[in-house]
Structures are given as structure tokens and as C-alpha cells.
């Protein structure tokens, strides 16, 4: 005997009232092996569940991949030159970065982390505005509404809940917006990760949770983070499908993420995609990766490089010529040149802005503090004029 609840789930009756599992529940589990459409040697490995992206879209995405690698290299160089405070590189993860951006439509939203600079730029945000955060001019330099890209989250997993709220509001208004929310393997240990997946599933909102499992949370390896069969297995615990994908296979990423986005757009609800990739460089330039992993470990991932793999694949099909490759490299160099020039130019910073945006309207106290800073700066500019007069006025002030 069974009864159907309003959730559509069958609940057993009788001595134990625990709900009976449905035969479809196991479909929420991820593939036994990460989905792969192109192997590390550049050979096509078809998967009947995921049609391969068109040659045209692959070629387009490959161009972004080339640019993505160039952006990472350029940013690292700028940190070494002291033009940027810090850069968490996505070197080796560029296929994930590019796919996350290009599977979305204009009306969709992207919620990135601090390591997802390439995804943000691929989505269309001005690179110099993106680097505002890392060069230290302000906490975020772009208008999130312009390209529908949330600020890059520095705390872990908190942005996943914002993504759920964004999607929830869109759903209430009947909009077709899909939200793609990114995080890393370390973030899956955070409470907000679990709350976000649970809320998304309960409210059945159009969010794709995209976990880039790069095997390290700064120094802590995945095995110390989770002993789940895979991170994608966590999805079934919330009643949403989970899928695993080769995170260095651009074609597979486009197919799997594209499918998840379509599912969300069609009212199928949230899902979780785990990409298996590797952080080829240290956490940031301030980190020393030799303290927790060997060069051999890293070297094992070199043959799986997403860029080389896609180049082999496209060249093998004669879709990419030497001239074509040179043109893409030139485009990437042009982006790097813009970044280089921009970051080598000091931007004028305005300390008065410190008080400007804390509240919609400055409080009395913030007005006073802004005036104080302003006066200090004025004195610093004209030290001669600020000499004895200033000291006198201070004394007078104290004796008021």
C-alpha cells in the first residue's frame, strides 16, 4: 500500500511510515566515470547521452581557451612585477572557466569565485574592471548588472545561496533566467554549500552548481576534504541530479553544462556538475605548493592539459590551421596587452569614496569621518600652511 504525497513521492504505509524509494531516484547519481568526449590525445570519445558540441561552437570556445591561458599567464607576470597584489590562477582549469561562461545566455547570471577571473572575462566583463579587486583599488570593480555577473566571492560557498535567491526571484517573476554558480572542492565542506543545494532543490529553482574539483583547497587534498564516492554524489542527498565531467575536456564540459542549463531553463530544477581538473599552480603567488605536493604529482596532469587536447582535436579534424592558431594567439595577445597597459597605469584613487557607499545616504557619523579624512588630506598636501595655526587650533579645540 502506498499513498502519493504532494511532493509526488510515494510514502509507505503500515508499521513504518518511511517513504519508499522511487525507481527513478538512482538516476540522480552521477556517471561511473566522468563524462569525456575528447581524450587527452585529442581523440573523439563519443557518449550517447551527451551529443558533441558543433565544430563551430568548439572552435569559438577554443579561441576563448587560448585567451584564458594568456590571461592567467599575464596576470601571474603582473603579480611578479608588483602591479597586482595577488592572483589565484586557474591555469589548467581554463576549459571549466570558458565553458561556464559560454553555456549561458545574456539573460542568465554567473556567480563566480576569486579563482574564476577567466570565466568572468569570458562572460564579457572588462578585464581591467575585473582586476580592480586584485590590484587593490576596490573590492569589486564592475557593475554586476551590466553582464549579469555577481561579484567574485572570496568567502567560500556563500555565493551559492545568493545564486539560489537570484534564481528564486527570477522564477517568481516567471523569467527564463538560469543561474550558474561556481565553487571549488574545498567549498563543498562549507555549510552554505549544503544549504544552497537544499534550498535550490526544495524551491526547485533554475541553478546549476558547478564544482571545479581541482584536488586542493590551498594545501589540503580532496581526500582530507571528503570521502564521498564523488562530490557529484552529494546531489542525490538533496534530490537533484549530479554529474561528473572531465574538467580538462572542453567539449564534454560544454555538453554537460549545456545540458544542465537547458534542464534548469525548462523547469527541471537545479543540478550539480563536478568537473575533475587540477590546480597546476600554487593557490596564489603567496603560497608554496612544494610543501604539500610533489612535482611528479603536478607533472602527471601535464599531458591532460585542456588547451593542448582541444588543439590536437581541432587540428586533427583540419578545423584549426596554423594561420587560425596564429590569429587566435594574436587576439589573446591583444587582450593581454590591454591588461598589461591598464595595470601598468596607476588609477587615481579617491579616499572620499570610502564613506560614499556604506549606506544609500551617509549617516551623520560617516559625514563627520569623511570630513576628518578630507581635512587630514588637505593638511598633508599643504604642510607649510598647517604648521603653527593647526597646532593652535588643536589646543583651542581641547580647551573648548
Amino acid at each position, binding site marked *: 500500500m502506498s499513498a502519493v504525497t504532494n511532493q509526488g513521492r510515494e510514502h509507505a504505509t503500515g508499521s513504518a511510515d518511511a517513504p519508499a524509494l522511487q525507481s527513478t531516484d538512482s538516476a540522480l547519481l552521477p556517471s561511473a566515470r566522468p563524462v569525456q568526449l575528447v581524450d587527452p590525445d585529442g581523440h573523439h570519445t563519443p557518449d550517447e547521452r551527451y551529443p558533441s558540441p558543433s565544430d563551430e561552437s568548439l572552435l569559438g570556445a577554443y579561441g576563448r581557451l587560448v585567451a584564458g591561458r594568456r590571461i592567467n599567464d599575464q596576470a601571474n607576470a603582473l603579480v611578479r612585477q608588483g602591479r597586482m597584489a595577488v592572483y589565484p590562477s586557474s591555469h589548467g582549469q581554463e576549459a571549466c572557466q570558458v565553458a561556464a561562461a559560454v553555456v549561458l545566455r545574456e539573460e542568465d547570471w554567473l556567480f563566480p569565485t576569486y579563482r574564476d577571473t577567466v570565466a568572468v572575462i569570458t562572460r564579457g566583463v572588462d578585464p581591467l574592471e575585473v582586476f580592480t579587486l586584485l590590484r587593490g583599488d576596490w*573590492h569589486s570593480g564592475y557593475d554586476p548588472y551590466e553582464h549579469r555577473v555577481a561579484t567574485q566571492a572570496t*568567502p567560500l560557498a*556563500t555565493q551559492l*545561496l*545568493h545564486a*539560489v*535567491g537570484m534564481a528564486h*526571484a527570477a522564477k517568481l517573476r516567471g523569467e527564463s533566467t538560469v543561474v550558474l554558480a561556481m565553487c571549488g572542492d574545498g567549498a563543498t565542506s562549507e555549510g552554505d554549500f549544503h544549504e544552497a543545494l537544499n534550498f535550490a532543490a526544495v524551491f526547485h529553482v533554475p541553478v546549476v552548481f558547478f564544482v571545479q574539483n581541482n584536488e586542493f583547497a590551498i594545501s589540503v587534498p580532496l581526500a582530507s576534504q571528503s570521502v564521498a564516492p564523488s562530490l557529484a554524489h552529494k546531489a542525490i542527498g538533496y534530490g537533484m541530479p549530479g554529474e561528473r565531467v572531465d574538467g580538462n575536456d572542453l567539449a564534454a564540459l560544454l555538453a554537460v553544462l549545456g545540458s544542465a542549463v537547458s534542464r534548469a531553463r525548462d523547469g527541471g530544477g537545479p543540478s550539480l556538475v563536478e568537473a575533475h581538473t587540477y590546480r597546476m599552480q600554487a593557490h596564489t603567488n603567496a603560497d608554496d605548493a612544494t610543501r604539500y605536493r610533489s612535482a611528479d604529482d603536478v607533472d602527471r596532469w601535464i599531458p591532460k592539459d585542456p588547451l593542448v587536447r582541444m588543439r590536437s582535436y581541432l587540428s586533427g579534424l583540419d578545423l584549426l590551421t596554423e594561420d587560425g592558431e596564429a590569429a587566435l594567439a594574436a587576439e589573446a595577445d591583444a587582450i593581454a596587452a590591454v591588461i598589461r597597459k591598464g595595470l601598468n597605469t596607476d588609477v587615481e584613487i579617491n579616499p572620499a569614496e570610502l564613506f560614499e557607499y556604506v549606506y*544609500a545616504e551617509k549617516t551623520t557619523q560617516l559625514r563627520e569621518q569623511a570630513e576628518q579624512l578630507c581635512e587630514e588630506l588637505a593638511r598633508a598636501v599643504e604642510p607649510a600652511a598647517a604648521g603653527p595655526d593647526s597646532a593652535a587650533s588643536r589646543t583651542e579645540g581641547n580647551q573648548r
Partner: protein
Amino acid sequence: MTQTTEAPAGNAVGQSDTPTRAAKVTSTFAKALNAALADAMEADPAVLMFGEDVGPLGGVFRITDGLTARFGEERCFDTPLAEAGIIGMAVGMAMNGMRPVVEMQFDAFAYPAFEQVVSHVAKMPNRTKGKVRLPIVIRIPYAGGIGGVEHHCDSSEAYYAHTPGLTVLAPATVRDAYFMLREAIASPDPVVFLEPKKLYWSKEEVDLADLRRTFDDGEAPRRIGRAVVARAGTDATLITYGPSVPTALAAAAAAAEEGRSIEVIDLRSIVPFDDETVSASVRRTGRAVVVAEAPGFASVASEIVARVQERCFHSLAAPVLRVTGFDIPFPSPKLEHFYLPSVDRILDAVDDLQWED
């Protein structure tokens, strides 16, 4: 300085929105909050209410009573039991044009959401140079005096007041409960709205329909950032807010019988802080006691003392004193009366304000 023997002529000055109708209609603090939510939801379809048990049950204090039935479960709904989830989701909704009002079931149960409040609710507008505004109201039934067990009676205002970007309000009257919640929902800034639990059942002669008309007509004076003189006096000033306001007023009434004229300032708005009203009062009276339920160390009360002495040093006849909770975890129900600021403790502090010379 000699004592003034004349009792103050009246109280509740500074309110210009008293209804003119003679009908004696009363409302509780809780009903006023419920009406404010309903009226705000009626006025603006972007206003949503969600949290734990706020749907069909109407919240454990019934503040959201009837809202799901009236506005539907898309606009007033229960969430999974996770406070960071509630506030994190509110952030995303506010980014996408909504005006979420969320309920944290009890003061101490809001702590799981602390990171979302401090790192995002408070900082997002500044982070984005004002591109993203977060008009979120976080309603928190707070403080003690109701015989609540552990985790149900915390005065957590200092955590929020210490966080730039948040507006922190604590109404103490039925009228203020209504107007301040409407104002909070209309504010472009995130608001932590502290509802003194022990005042939920307090009553005033108030016609809620009149309050609605007054607010909708734009005739309710601004309350965010504006303290009010709850009782006028000339000898000393009690500066207080939220659950301690009635206690301070009772102390002032008792002091009047002993011939002391005590002014009571109800801050209403902890952030932004109304230095002007507070300083003007203390400059006039020359003496002040800050009364608050939270532990006194590194508290809102400490901040008020610092601000008053910075601004009123030359008008002060005595150090500014504090009557606060002790620096201990909030006590069990049978012990809370030892902890809470009482009329006697306030009067003792007033007596200590160096009246002799």
C-alpha cells in the same frame, strides 16, 4: 547643583503623528508588526516574507499570522531550517529586485547566519560602489524578560551595530513598531530589526488603519536615525532603547515621586545613532545613565557613554553611568530577574550621579 523638585509636565513629546480620532482602539506590539508587514506587502509586490514557521503557523510569535493565506505561499513562505540559507537567499533575491523580510526565529538562532550578515548583507553595497543595494529586513525577536530558556533571550545588538553597513533598529512602542517596520522595509539599506519579545503583548491606544494612512500619505516622521524624548525631564537623562524603555520610564516615574525630574530618551535607532538628540538632552540635564539589557562590556551602552562624554564633557556634573546586563551568559528563567536592568538598579545609578556638590 541642587535638585529640581518640579515633576515634568508630560511625557511622549516629539510625536506629531498621534491619531486625531477619538475612538479607543487598542493594538498590541505584535499586531502592529503584523499589520506593518501586511500593509507593506499590499503596497509593494516585491516585498516577500520568509523564514522558519512563518507560513501557515504565522511564526512562533504569530507576527506573520494570516500573511500566507492573504498573499499566497509565493510571498510568505516557510524555508528549510537553515538561517544562513534564509539570509543568503534573501541576498540573491534582493539583488534581483525583491525586498525580502526574513524572520530569525530567536536572537541566538540568528548566529548561523552571521557570515552572510556581516560579509555580504552589510558589505555588498560598498563592495559594488552602490551598484547593488540590498533592501533586506532581518527581523529578530530579541532579548529577555519572558522566562525563555537558553538561546532564546540574547541581546545581540552589539554584533550588528559594530558592523558598518547595517541599520539597527529596536522599537519600544506599538506605534513605533508599526512605523519603524514600514520604514525599514522601504529603506534601501539592509536593516536588522530587533523586536523586544517581552513587548510583543504590550498594548497602546492605536488605530492601525490610521497608522497605515499616515504612513502611506508620507506623514509619519522619519524614525531611522531619530531618537525620541519618551519623557521630558530636567535633572538627569536616561538613554535607552528596546526592551529597557518601559523600565526606564517606570524608573523616571518613581524618581518623580522622590522629586527628581528624569528625562528618558528612547533611541529607537541604534544605527544610525542620533547624537544630536542625545547630546542636547544631556547638555540640558548635565547627568546621564545609559540603560540596556545586553552585557555591558564592549556594548552599545559603552559606545553611548563614550559618545556622550566626547560631546558633553563640559556640561556633565557626573560621570555617565551604565545599568546593563552583567557580563555573563543570559541566565535561566528563574535567575533572569537578577540580571535584567530593574527600576531599583536604575534609581541607584541615578542616586550615584554626584548630586551633593
